[in-house]
């Protein structure tokens, strides 16, 4: 017997998938992008939720019985506190009010001289050179290291089991697709975020460009191969999420040489294997839209943080499905009517022809990122007005 929730889930997932293919679904899909917003909205403790991801389910159940959505971009719990605690390192992230913040100074464990080992074998480098620097306990190579790694494994396994259960419950019980099956990255962003830091990569681009290029290429291949092994069912209608960070902070000439080739490389690898890729285009990509012509054909979705979405859709709508449109600043500080007016304008401008998903311009991290009444009103409006 096909349940109502199953039917709803299938309808919603199909809605997104038609948009991914730049076709016209029955209505404009509404994507909800948040980390802790539902948790705070329901009065739950964010630190408790991070310890026990199953609590997210209570937050989702209440929040999305009040606010209409077609899908969640992810579960919102990327950071695994217990894993890092057992290895005596907080990772590159710090917590404040349940919001996970990136800490640049913790991402510089690699020296320039390490490039050679990384290029030779990126996985071996991560395991044998990078991890012992990042996690001192693993550098001993004795029983203490083995015990710590075993404890980290128990913590990871526990988190994984809970996350998988949360994923299944959200999709099967609530009928809400959780789109991102995995969050991926590629060469230049990995070097920037995990290995060299911003100052490091900018210096490397100028002083040892060939090493940066070679490392970017092998890292892109290695990480993509691992990700495809982990998420090996690209036909399931879900997505690989790739946030883009370093690119728009480079000079246009450097962007062309040190970022674009690897963005195209990672898109080619995934789309050739029939994955749907979602690029979270952080910062303003307006000056870079001309490069989208060189993107491979395939299911690519772009969430735009800044820029005129109407212009963006006109310029790149033939290459990728466009998502965004609702500024969280207005959800936080505007009136209900202002939010509805914006939603109407966005639908009028961007929905025609399909290949469009309505969502916020940024992730809603904390409760202050959007007033409940405004989000509910905007989503209710789009759900009705966004019918094709």
């Amino acid at each position: 017997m096909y349940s109502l929730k199953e039917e709803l889930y299938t309808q919603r997932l199909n809605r997104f998938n038609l948009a991914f293919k730049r076709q016209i679904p029955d209505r404009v899909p509404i994507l909800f992008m948040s980390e802790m917003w539902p948790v705070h909205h329901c009065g739950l403790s964010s630190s408790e939720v991070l310890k026990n991801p199953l609590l997210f389910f209570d937050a989702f159940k209440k929040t999305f019985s009040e606010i209409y959505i077609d899908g969640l971009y992810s579960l919102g719990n990327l950071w695994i506190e217990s894993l890092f605690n057992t290895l005596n390192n907080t990772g590159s992230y710090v917590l404040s009010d349940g919001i996970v913040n990136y800490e640049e100074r913790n991402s510089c464990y690699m020296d320039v001289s390490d490039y050679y080992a990384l290029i030779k074998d990126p996985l071996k480098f991560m395991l044998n050179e990078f991890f012992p620097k990042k996690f001192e306990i693993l550098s001993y190579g004795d029983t203490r290291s083995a015990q710590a790694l075993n404890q980290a494994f128990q913590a990871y396994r526990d988190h994984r089991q809970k996350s998988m259960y949360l994923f299944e419950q959200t999709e099967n019980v609530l009928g809400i697709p959780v789109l991102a099956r995995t969050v991926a990255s590629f060469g230049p962003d990995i070097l920037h975020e995990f290995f060299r830091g911003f100052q490091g990569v900018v210096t490397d681009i100028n002083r040892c460009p060939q090493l940066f290029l070679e490392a970017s290429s092998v890292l892109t291949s290695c990480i993509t191969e691992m990700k495809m092994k982990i998420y090996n069912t690209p036909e399931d209608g879900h997505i690989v999420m790739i946030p883009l960070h370093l690119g728009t902070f480079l000079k246009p000439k450097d962007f062309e040489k040190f970022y674009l080739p690897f963005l195209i490389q990672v898109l080619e690898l995934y789309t050739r294997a029939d994955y749907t890729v979602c690029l979270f285009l952080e910062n303003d990509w307006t000056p870079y839209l001309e490069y989208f012509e060189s993107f491979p054909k395939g299911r690519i979705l772009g969430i735009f943080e800044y820029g005129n979405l109407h212009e963006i859709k006109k310029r790149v709508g033939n290459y990728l499905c466009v998502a965004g449109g609702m500024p969280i600043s207005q959800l936080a500080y505007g009136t209900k009517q202002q939010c509805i007016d914006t939603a109407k304008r966005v639908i009028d401008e961007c929905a025609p022809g399909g290949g469009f998903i309505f969502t916020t311009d940024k992730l809603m991290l904390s409760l202050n990122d959007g007033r409940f009444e405004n989000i509910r009103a905007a989503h209710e409006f789009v759900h009705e007005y966004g019918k094709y």
Partner: protein
Amino acid sequence: MEEKKTVEMLFDDLKKSHEEEFGEEEMEIIIDEMILSMLF
């Protein structure tokens, strides 16, 4: 004197000790996921 093990060797030991529980293929996936999570 205890042999000093690389992290790769430590992961191999971990893999072997849980292979029966998860099966070889699934255990490899879990380890890969864990390694990538540790990059953060």
